[in-house]
């Protein structure tokens, strides 16, 4: 990037004038800000709070399942808890966390822009999210819902629990998702810095762009569907209730038309993060830039034609089921392209084993393991056996929670110096990463086995032969939770007392590191002119990280 940034020794360790302290620092200046960085941070804080809430629900569920018979709660409470766990984790944490949080903070920085295309819309998106989340939260406190996060009809339209506020809350959050997606697409089209062609965009941007396309195309259908369920629950119009002539399978089609692509709304941003992290910590050019970039679009595209694989047992014709099964496997091809390119990037790199890299390893394992079980589940004959068992639960937790959480944590550690200007304690970071990765495996590998033994999901009690594995799973969950608490504690301490990080502690070649940490309100002192590609580590200007191993092989 030109003019070339000053070498780190000349730049002050902690940028004196930055988005955190100027133009103002008061709460009011944050709540009315149009700075994408502040909005991104507010999204990160809000989504992290809901991550904690959803995690708490998960722990309560796991504690209940310690015993085959009722233990700490009744069946109704249990049903509410797993519903709320799903709703909170999916709609309030995973869908907005990486795109609206990190995406907001990083997208303009990576494009060399001063802000997103529509800053006011961006702030509106945050408040819409908060309003929807509060409404959903109100619904959870006042009665909750026992339908599962999928809101399957006719149960969801006849249940006595108060499902309407939660449905409307999710409906409102959808608008936030649409607004953010729209903003990002326009930003990517209209606000790239001079010199940045499409093939010079960082891979993070490519993945977020693909995510945004899914967000704007799929979310309206979900919004309409949930609205119809709410109307039916409130007024009994009979749209999806077979007793009144409605077709419940139609609901499933509508629901999964959004909610399957929504899986890619969650995992594509995770892949976005990983593409950045792997280059920075292997200190090597990305292998197969175009393949990684286009495979994001490929996943976004194919993701729209796979929804029927959720309905293999809902009375689809065998031909439909077969087609949906094969189309689902295409996702595996695009994902494999990414995985192979990431691993090829490591080859002959000078790997720097820091916390984000530990999460990268975890991500790779969870994505491949979860992905392979996904291919197995896309096989109709196998799915008929595994449908609605813990095998499915373990599969999607590996991909959606395992992979996405790994990427979220990798992003949190990798960009922590950029966002806050401070460093986190590396030793604690690695300890927590090991605990989280091991804890996660101990939580969900037993669930694969349970599912294969035939334990159905969402059941309150179970036969005694499933007892040992359930205890193992709960034990794993507590290690996982402990690891996450450690992360929370040391990051909060580092926020206040962490040593100043300097402009670019990782010696990363990502464009966002060319500006001081934390960045000034207008992002760059001078509008950057892009002269090199992203993730380029083989030109003369490259600096190796302090204490990083020297490259063993000159490439």
């Amino acid at each position, binding site marked *: 990037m030109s003019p070339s940034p000053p070498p780190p020794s000349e730049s002050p360790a902690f940028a004196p004038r930055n988005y955190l302290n100027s133009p103002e620092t008061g709460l009011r200046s944050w709540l009315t800000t149009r700075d994408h960085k502040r909005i991104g941070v507010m999204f990160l804080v809000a989504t992290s709070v809901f991550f904690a809430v959803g995690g708490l629900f998960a722990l309560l569920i796991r504690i209940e399942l310690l015993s085959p018979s009722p233990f700490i709660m009744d069946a109704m409470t249990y049903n509410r808890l797993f519903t709320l766990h799903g709703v909170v984790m999916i709609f309030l944490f995973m869908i907005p966390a990486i795109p609206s949080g990190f995406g907001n903070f990083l997208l303009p920085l990576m494009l060399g822009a*001063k802000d997103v295309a529509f800053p006011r819309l961006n702030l509106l998106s945050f408040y819409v999210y908060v309003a929807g989340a509060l409404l959903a939260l109100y619904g959870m406190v006042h009665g909750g819902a026992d339908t599962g996060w999928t809101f399957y009809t006719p149960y969801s339209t006849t249940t006595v629990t108060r499902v309407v506020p939660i449905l409307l809350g999710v409906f409102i959050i959808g608008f936030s998702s649409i607004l953010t997606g*729209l903003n990002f697409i326009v930003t990517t089209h*209209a606000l790239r810095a001079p010199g940045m062609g499409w093939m010079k965009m960082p891979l993070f941007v490519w993945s977020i762009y693909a995510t945004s396309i899914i967000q704007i195309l799929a979310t*309206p259908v979900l919004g309409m569907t949930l609205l119809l369920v709410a109307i039916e629950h409130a*007024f009994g119009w*009979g*749209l999806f209730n077979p007793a009144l*002539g409605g077709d419940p399978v*139609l609901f499933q089609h*509508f629901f999964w038309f959004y909610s399957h692509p929504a899986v890619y709304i969650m995992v594509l941003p995770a892949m976005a993060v990983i593409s950045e992290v792997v280059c920075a910590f292997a200190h090597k050019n990305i292998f197969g830039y175009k393949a990684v970039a286009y495979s994001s679009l490929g996943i976004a595209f194919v993701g729209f034609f796979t929804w029927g694989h959720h309905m293999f047992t809902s009375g689809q014709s065998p031909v439909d089921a077969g087609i949906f099964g094969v189309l689902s496997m295409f996702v595996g091809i695009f994902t494999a392209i990414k995985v192979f390119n990431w691993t090829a990037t490591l080859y002959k790199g000078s790997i720097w084993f820091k916390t984000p890299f530990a999460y990268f390893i975890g991500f790779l394992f969870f994505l491949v393991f979860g992905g392979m079980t996904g291919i197995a589940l896309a096989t109709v004959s196998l799915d008929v056996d595994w449908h609605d068992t813990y095998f499915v639960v373990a599969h999607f937790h590996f991909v959606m929670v395992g992979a996405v959480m790994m990427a979220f944590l990798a992003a949190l550690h990798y960009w922590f110096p950029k966002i806050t200007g401070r460093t986190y304690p590396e030793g604690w970071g690695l300890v927590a990463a090991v605990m989280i990765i091991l804890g996660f495996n101990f939580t969900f590998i037993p669930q694969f086995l349970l599912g294969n033994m035939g334990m159905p999901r969402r059941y309150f009690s179970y036969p005694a032969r499933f007892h040992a594995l359930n205890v193992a799973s709960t034990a794993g969950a507590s290690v996982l939770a402990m690891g996450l608490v450690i992360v929370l504690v040391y990051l909060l301490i580092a926020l206040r007392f962490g040593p100043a990080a300097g402009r670019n502690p990782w010696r990363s070649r990502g464009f966002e590191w060319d500006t001081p940490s934390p960045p000034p309100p207008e992002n760059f002192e001078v509008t950057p002119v892009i002269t090199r590609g992203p993730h380029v580590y083989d030109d003369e200007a490259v600096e190796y990280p302090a204490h990083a191993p020297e490259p063993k092989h000159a490439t």
Partner: protein
Amino acid sequence: MQPSPLAHHFESLDKQAHASRLAMWIFLATEVLLFTALFAGYSVYRFLFYDGFSQCSRSIETWIGFVNTLILVTSSFTVATGLNFAAKGQGRKTGLFFGISVLFALAFLGLKAVEYTHHFQEGQLPGPYYHFAAVKAAGGPLFFSLYFLITGLHAFHVIVGMTVLIVIGVLAYRGRFSPAYHVPVENAALYWHLVDLIWIFVFPLIYLI
């Protein structure tokens, strides 16, 4: 003097206009998908309840739908004319033509209200409120559930579109736009065209076939 419409983070008015236009098109795509869910639902139920749906479809006043189609298409023409004047820098005429379009929109809503009143009298109502004597075939209540959802959501869009036309029309009348920068007028016109376009699908789907 007017404050410059150029926001600080754009290089030029051209780029800013490009961004606004692109955003509008993306927004329209989400609107189309919103209605698509309802249209898909309608099509499925029409297939499942052929008799009920065709009898109900014939029981509603085709002439009102037809006149409303004419009204909306004409209003699209007046909006396009208004936009044309904005491009030439004749903001007052833009305001006038947008005003005429708003009158058309009011006429549309008026006819829709007449139609709704009629449905209420006849008992052509959604779901459990349905007590329409003329059609006993299965699917009648569902037809009117979807009828009210689709036309209701469309009417809501007409009201929103009307509001947009009023705001932008007044601004244009006061000379806020220039031949170089009139993207808000363009976007308002685009939105109104979409409202029409959706009706172009609603009319045959509900009234004709």
